[in-house]
């Protein structure tokens, strides 16, 4: 497990702070391209606000289109941080070390982007204060706590606050290192961010305990966030395809699958773009690959259960819906792509140890998984609305408009852009975790072999 070479602290510092202290050409190119895509998305939003939701392709009964699909998708990606960072931290897994910061910040950014979607898909966005602000506007009416649409912002804000705190606390030691090696406005920024960290034993103890406490507290929050988002759909008694009790854990585990795959994607990119071959090693992808197999199998169980019990009902509208999802154009194609991309292609590849250690393969399969999972959300949300109840007169189909597509594309570009901007100011890999890992590595002789071991923290 520990195939690392011993790396002195000074090299760790210079390697991992590379992003902050210099800007390569590729960074500028990437930022400009992504900014253009984001700009297109912003323009779409502006035009929509100006002219109305008629520009989008939504219509009765499919009142929620790919904007909501994208919303659920990004909430899903946001589960990366807690899964990797919190759970692996609590179980003392050594191989989490390079991944935690990227996972946590991916969480924060994807949550922020997810939050924007319900805002831009509202009919009268200038009245959003009625919905989001905990204030009884002139008529003395508060937001309606009976509505799942009000539980959503509560849960998401909680998760955002918790995750942001998590990132900030984990950043403190690294901010101190950066503070001591910079001047000017950067020095000022890092001084504020490091909160006067000096590396005394007491400060380390407090920082570690805070990290562990937040990990433990964030775990129920992360489960609850996606469950609450799933209850946006599951509590709808009128939409047969949504009204299933399994939605909460099904969505959560799908989110974990999405999120961990996204972390794999980001990690591979980090290794290539920043030349961090010493820190992000095949063994990390190996471990993540095995974790992904377990998650994918769990997800498959819930997926099969959901589909199976839907057919078990033998309700005509439900059966028509499932038939539409599986056999009707274009949903049959989307379904096939989804099941192959999310499950049938990646999982057998991950079973092979050689494939798990091949970073290009892991990069491609992780992207495939997310393509598949985006389509999975599409297949759950849209066809269920298209085949709501037995009143076949209102059955319909949906094809996304260019405006919606550009906004969805912009959401992906925005996450990439934010990550790149983040990497300029904060190190994308935790320095102190790497240094800790160096110190905890050890070798044990058993018989004639020398086996890598690790010091138990407890």
């Amino acid at each position, binding site marked *: 497990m520990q195939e690392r070479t011993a790396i002195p602290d000074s090299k760790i510092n210079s390697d991992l702070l590379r992003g902050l202290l210099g800007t390569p050409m590729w960074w500028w190119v990437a930022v400009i391209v992504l900014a253009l895509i984001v700009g297109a998305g912003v323009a779409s939003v502006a035009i929509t606000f100006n002219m109305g939701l008629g520009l989008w392709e939504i219509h009765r009964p499919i009142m929620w289109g790919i904007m909501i699909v994208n919303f659920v998708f990004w909430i899903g990606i946001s589960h990366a941080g807690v899964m990797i960072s919190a759970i692996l931290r609590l179980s003392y897994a050594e191989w989490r070390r390079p991944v935690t910061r990227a996972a946590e910040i991916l969480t924060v950014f994807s949550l922020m982007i997810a939050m924007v979607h319900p805002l831009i898909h509202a009919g009268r966005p200038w009245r959003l204060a009625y919905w989001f602000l905990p204030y009884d506007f002139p008529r003395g009416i508060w937001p309606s706590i009976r509505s799942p649409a009000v539980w959503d912002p509560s849960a998401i804000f909680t998760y955002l606050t918790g995750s942001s705190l998590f990132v900030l606390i984990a950043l403190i030691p690294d901010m101190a290192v950066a503070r001591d090696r910079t001047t000017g406005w950067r020095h000022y920024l890092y001084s504020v961010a490091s909160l006067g960290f000096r590396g005394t034993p007491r400060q380390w103890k407090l920082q570690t305990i805070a990290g562990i406490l937040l990990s433990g507290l964030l775990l129920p929050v992360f489960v609850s966030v996606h469950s609450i988002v799933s209850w946006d759909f599951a509590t709808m008694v009128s939409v047969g395809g949504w009204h299933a009790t399994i939605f909460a854990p099904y969505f959560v585990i799908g989110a974990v699958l999405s999120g961990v795959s996204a972390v794999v994607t980001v990690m591979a990119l980090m290794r290539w773009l920043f030349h961090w071959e010493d820190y992000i090693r095949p063994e990390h992808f190996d471990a993540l690959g095995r974790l992904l197999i377990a998650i994918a199998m769990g997800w498959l169980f819930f997926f099969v259960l959901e589909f199976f019990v839907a057919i078990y009902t033998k309700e005509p509208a439900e059966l028509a819906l499932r038939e539409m999802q599986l056999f009707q154009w274009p949903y049959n194609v989307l379904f096939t792509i989804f099941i192959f991309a999310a499950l049938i292609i990646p999982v057998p590849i991950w079973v092979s140890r050689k494939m798990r250690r091949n970073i290009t393969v892991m990069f491609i399969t992780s992207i495939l998984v997310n393509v598949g999972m985006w389509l999975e959300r599409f297949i759950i949300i849209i066809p269920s609305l298209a085949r709501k109840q037995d009143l076949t007169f209102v059955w319909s189909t949906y094809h996304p408009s260019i405006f919606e597509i550009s906004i969805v594309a912009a959401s992906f570009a925005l996450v990439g852009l934010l990550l790149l901007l983040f990497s300029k100011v904060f190190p994308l890999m935790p320095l102190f975790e790497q240094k800790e890992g160096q110190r905890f590595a050890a070798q044990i002789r058993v018989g004639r072999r020398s086996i890598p071991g690790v010091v*138990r923290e407890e």
Partner: protein
Amino acid sequence: MQRPHLRRTSREHELSFAFPDTPAEAGKDILSRHLRLTSRFWKAFWVLLLLFGVGLLGLALRILGGFDDRAAWGYEAALFAYLLTTAQSAPLVSIAMRIVRNHWRRPLARLSEVFAVVGILNLLLFFPLLMTLPPQEGRKSMWFGWPGSPHIYDSLAIIFLVLCGLAILLFTSMPDMAVLREQASGRLKGIARRLSLGWVGSGREWKKLNLGLGYLGALYFILLIGVHALVSMDFAMSLVPGWIDSIFPAFHALSGLQSAVATIIFSMFLMRAIGGYREYFGLDQFWALSKLLLAFSLLWFYFWWSTFWVYWYGRAPSEVSVLKLIMFGPYAVPFFLSFGLNFVVPFGLMLWNVARRSIKWPTIAAASILVGTFFDRIRLYVSAFSVEDVTGHALESIPATHFPDLIDVLIYVGFFSGSILMYMVASKVVPIISMWEVKEWLRLRVVRTFLRTEVAVVAKPE
């Protein structure tokens, strides 16, 4: 067992386990405890055997009463589900922890795997139950009317589950049986010779053992989740019209995972108190399992809440009737007991690190869960079995509470005794502490100084 060169830091420090710290000493110690047969053991043996006979009598009486009155079989179904959820799920703790490759599982691995023998008993309860199932016409069934369903497929599934569990037990105990083959005497020597399957401990054999245990473990896991899904759907959900609950099979399986951990914790406690293995089940084991218990108790609530919330919010009449039947109507008492004992108590206790890091409190939480699951299975299965008209879209009327009669009590007493009996007997054939795993652990662990303290350094051979 004396290590004067080490400074004792705190009572809970990882180094302060009391069992021997060389592999040879450990092997000798475990062997001597295993071969010890006290008179208390024999007394318990005969009493339990007698009670088991009474239970068999009860079951025979119930069978003689016929299979038409499904409501009368409700409690027996609940007992079957209870044993499935507790004893048959218990081997999962060892299997899952082996996959995750942690080390604190080693003393309790065999303890968990021996529960597979209770599965044999559960088969006795299972087959009569199959006869009580109504035909599939007019009602929803997960088999959609396939020929031979559900009898053939359910039977195959559960038989395979039991066989897989026994196979796992057989294979993990091979190295220890080899030791017994050499060191024991009398009848045990003969049994051990047969059960050790010619084990000599070569490198290739060890490799095959680890690989085989990995595959069998995964198979057991899949089969167990499958059996939970089958039993929950065939014997509960499809007997209640209008009960369309996609999470119910998962809830049932999760309840099994929670009860598995609780069963192990409680058994560890018993092994310490009356089993004579006090030194082997230390704080490490209880602390680690208590964290799992916290997680599973929260998950129990989460999965229960998924059903309740979606049904309650939607207000569809068919779903509200189901809520009345299984939660708030005639079975409200077992439901609230189960809610309190499966969630409120264990969650409330295991929330506190002080409680987790002890022996007493996880045991109390585990006992609470075992009792809570008992009531939970009753409220699910007795209610489902007491529904008269299984056809239609929704429950027409909520049946009244069905109370247990004398035969039910006889069956419960008898089969609980029988389960304990089988476990006890198995534990005296196969050592309850896995010798080879503990020895392996002792080889992989080294104590080193780290800065100003001593820490355990753990090798990770993978």
